[in-house]
């Protein structure tokens, strides 16, 4: 298999990722791409606690993820790649790095963002960045859990 889900979620690893998506996809590893978490042992330990022991958790910085993406794509196990913001996604998808589909799973309220869906709040700048990714050929949809309907990008930007 390979990376079955590229997900933008500011809560990073939590129940929707591990159980909601992880179970039906039979995910065997989760890659968390976040520069701050990569440099914090405490945070890594907390995120690892939310994942069953039979699922491997890999912590990577954005630069490391760019280097190792093709390695994860070739992995015989099914994996999920999670990042917390659109900038990290854009950095990873730049220059045709092999990200063809992106799931916007949860971006929550912050100053400057407005509600687009119940679980997606975006600033105008973030909406523009998502549209730019779509223009590069990346399929962007919003969907919090697999049992809900995927929402096309044009319906929430």
């Amino acid at each position, binding site marked *: 298999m390979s990376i079955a889900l590229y997900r933008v979620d500011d809560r990073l690893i939590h129940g929707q990722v591990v159980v909601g998506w992880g179970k039906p996809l039979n995910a065997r590893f989760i890659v968390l791409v976040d520069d701050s978490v990569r440099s914090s042992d405490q945070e890594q*330990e907390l*995120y690892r606690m*939310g994942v069953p022991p039979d699922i491997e958790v890999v912590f990577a910085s954005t630069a490391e993820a760019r280097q190792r993406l093709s390695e994860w794509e070739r992995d015989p196990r099914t994996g999920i790649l999670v990042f917390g913001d659109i900038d990290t996604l854009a950095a990873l998808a730049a220059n045709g790095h092999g990200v063809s589909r992106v799931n916007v799973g949860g971006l*929550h309220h912050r100053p400057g963002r407005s509600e687009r869906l119940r*679980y997606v*709040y975006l600033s105008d700048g973030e909406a523009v960045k998502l549209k730019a990714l779509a223009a590069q050929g990346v399929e962007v949809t919003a969907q919090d859990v697999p*049992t809900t309907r995927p929402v096309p990008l044009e319906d929430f930007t």
Partner: protein
Amino acid sequence: MTTPARPPLGRSLLRLFTVQGSWNYERMQGIGMGVAEQPLIRDLDGNGTAYHAAVARAAHFFNAHPYLCGLAVGATARAEHDGVPPQQVERLRTALCGPLGALGDRLVWAGWLPLTSGLALIGVALGLGLWAIFGFLIVYNIGHVALRWWALRAGWAYGGQVATALREPVLQRAATLSAPAMALVAGVALPLVVHYLTGGFLSWTRAVLAVVAAGGFVLLRWQRARLTGLRFGLVLLALAALIGWFWQ
């Protein structure tokens, strides 16, 4: 920064009982968290600026198991007193959402609640009547309030090092044992409850009930994405009422 020798944990605990009261999609439990944390950070140094900024941070988006929210409340309040940089406090809250949600689900929703409910059902089936219900309410809530109190105290004690609290052997053992214990009690309760509930039925209606239960089980497994036990139960109730109405 100074840390209060006697933090008002009791007041914070009382407020934590309302943490779900202001739940909304924008901040989920955020407002409730801010309300619960407020007594613990009321005496932050400064001319009120530090306090106001800390309350605003405490009310940001948050979502975890409601019984374990206190761990995040205590930990972030302590981190604020310890002078941890604001961005790091926010990252700590975000990092706690996942493990507190997962641990709470295992301990409570898939463990303590069905375990004590099963024991209550066994009590009712064995003829204890209302005493079994009162016993359930008392025992369940002793565990529930104890967990909330432990979470808040542990969060305050460990602050930014709160992962240490989550590694405590008692907690890990409880999380491991809760599901098998619940399964054991459910296994014992099921035949007793079925016998109790079908005691007044004729033998052929018991066969109908068995078919309906087996069919419902298969249907729920087959249509698990669309059908829930609640919906199926409501449909059955409506059908039973309709059949009873025509029967008369």
